[in-house]
């Protein structure tokens, strides 16, 4: 096969640091060209895997000219826990607790993504009440995730912990609810193929409803403290910009994509679950910079509150499990299915291949955190090393999902 010039295939590929054999074919400055302009030396800085601002054991190797980044390569795998291999040796249901540990901030939505895929694979239906409960759990998770993310983002901006304390105050309230329901604070293991595991009591629902009712107050408080902050504006506006074409081509999903103004929310596009029954808007950004990515989170939390209010209002009575669904001895027919949903971080997908045995033949997770990092280098090029941690913070990664 002959090697076509890559730039002719994909203009979005023109990153500054494509390695040598391809660099010649690309427009724009290549690393070698940058080298030639230099009189001084470049400095290579390895950040992580133990670094307070890399959100876990993530590592990036940045090449610096003074303080400016001219090249940045992420290094993965420090939390590669072989989730996929283990799942191939476990039953379908046995993998459910492992999905909790994929994205450990949002176990409820990860559970749902997996349950959704298995239901698609085996053709299981889900009763009304369970559909509503799933939406309640997923949106509560979104609140937890986005609130914590904003806290972490401000940590990276140097606020030393304060916003995070506010975020964790709200998180504790929500995960107390999760604990009351599922028995575990973080690892809920709540969804099942064909429904949910436990039915919440009326008191639980009332507590949750009150929490959601009061949540906008927290958001107002949060925003009063953060959104107009001068340092925040100076350090996020115009930093780490991505164009819509770049973002689509690199497969960004979730708030990071919508911050560029691309209207693609799986809750609307796929309309999975009962989302088409709900009224909510999809916030879109304009500039695709760090500030827009921050605003996306705040606005999405406000929309989630709307969805939750409707869900509590309309929650029907009824069973929470499909009576035909089998938990033990579950063997779907041979075949494959790719299921995806809009997780708090982006498109969270599972790809399952069944060969008719109790274990999946192939179990693949499509991790939004990993794929959203594709453009990390492009976002960081030309900015200072201090900005790179803010940009990384605004992408919102969880290492359990990046490395699996």
């Amino acid at each position: 096969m002959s090697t076509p010039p890559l730039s002719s295939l994909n203009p979005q590929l023109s990153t500054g640091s494509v390695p040598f054999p391809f660099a010649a074919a690309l427009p724009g400055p290549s690393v070698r060209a940058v080298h030639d302009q230099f009189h001084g030396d470049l400095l290579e800085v390895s950040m992580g895997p133990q670094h307070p601002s890399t959100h876990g054991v993530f590592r990036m190797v940045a090449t610096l000219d003074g303080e400016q980044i001219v090249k940045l390569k992420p290094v993965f795998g420090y939390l590669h826990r072989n989730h996929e291999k283990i799942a191939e040796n476990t039953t379908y249901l046995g993998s459910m607790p492992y999905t909790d540990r994929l994205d450990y901030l949002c176990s409820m939505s990860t559970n749902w993504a997996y349950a959704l895929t298995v239901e698609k694979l085996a053709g299981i239906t889900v009763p009304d009440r369970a559909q509503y409960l799933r939406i309640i759990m997923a949106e509560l998770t979104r609140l937890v995730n986005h609130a914590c993310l904003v806290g972490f983002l401000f940590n990276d901006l140097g606020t030393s912990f304060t916003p995070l304390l506010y975020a964790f105050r709200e998180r504790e309230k929500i995960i107390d609810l999760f604990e009351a329901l599922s028995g575990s604070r973080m690892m809920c293991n709540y969804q099942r193929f064909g429904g949910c595991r436990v039915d919440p009591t009326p008191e639980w629902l009332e507590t949750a409803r009150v929490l959601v009712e009061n949540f906008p107050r927290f958001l107002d408080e949060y925003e009063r403290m953060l959104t107009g902050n001068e340092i925040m504006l100076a350090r996020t506006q115009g930093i780490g910009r991505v164009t819509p074409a770049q973002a689509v081509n690199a497969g960004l999903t979730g708030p990071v994509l919508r911050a560029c103004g691309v209207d693609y929310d799986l809750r609307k596009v796929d309309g999975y679950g009962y989302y088409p029954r709900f009224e909510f808007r999809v916030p879109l950004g304009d500039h695709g910079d760090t500030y827009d990515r921050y605003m996306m989170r705040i606005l999405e939390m406000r929309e989630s509150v709307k969805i939750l209010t409707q869900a509590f209002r309309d929650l029907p009575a009824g069973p929470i499990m499909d009576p035909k669904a089998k938990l033990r001895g579950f063997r779907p027919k041979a075949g494959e299915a790719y299921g995806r949903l809009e997780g708090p971080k982006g498109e969270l997908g599972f790809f399952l291949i069944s060969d008719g045995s109790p274990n999946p033949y192939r179990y693949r997770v499509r991790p939004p955190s990993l794929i959203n990092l594709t453009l990390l280098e492009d976002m960081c090029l030309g900015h200072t090393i201090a900005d790179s941690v803010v940009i990384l913070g605004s992408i919102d990664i969880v290492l359990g999902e990046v490395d699996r």
Partner: protein
Amino acid sequence: METVEQLRDRLLARFPAAKIELVTNPSAAAEHSLLIDAAHGRDIALFLRDDPTLRLDYCSNVTGIDWPDKEITDITKTTVADPAGASGATKVVEQKTTRIQPGYLEAVYHLYSMALKHGPVILRLRTANRSDAVTLPSFTPVWRSCDFQEREIYDLYGIIFECHPDLRRLLMWYEFKDHPMRKDYVEPDDYEWEPTAHGAILEKAKANRLTSAPIAGDAATPGPGSAPPATKSSNTEAKP
């Protein structure tokens, strides 16, 4: 969006030399996929991305799959008259023939269109075998989202993606030699005995205990961590 059959026919009309097959999916999801040949892979991918009615501008998911060599036993049954039979009974004679269906590695691409909001179109590419002819064209030049995912497949399955701009291991360390997601990968055995309900692990631990006599020898001369203080000081004194 057009059906997979229509799409296959259109692709065949456009690329008459290409081999394009429909792979049906018998599960409830019923999302069928297209098996395309490696030689035309990139042309087809570009066409799918740029075709105005498809505009599959978003490659969501890339999956590597390992299909090892399969031994298939064909059983042919023939009925013959049983010579020892008392009442002219017949006997069924089974003839078994085994053949080896060669294995291959497969990469599956899930394509969607963000512009037109449809999908998925599923592409499959297969390598010729699992050992030496494991090259496939990389789709990273077409969709950048394949970048890390193809690196991951290279790492865990060993498919070599031609024209990938940066094909290094993604998850394991660079010195690592194996491809651990392959079905025949044997992981390093570092199980100690433990009380567990998993039969497989206990078996492994037992096997480990039998084969690893040197470890038992190690345990007989314990290191300073586990030894009583007297042994410890004598141990350390022995070392200069």
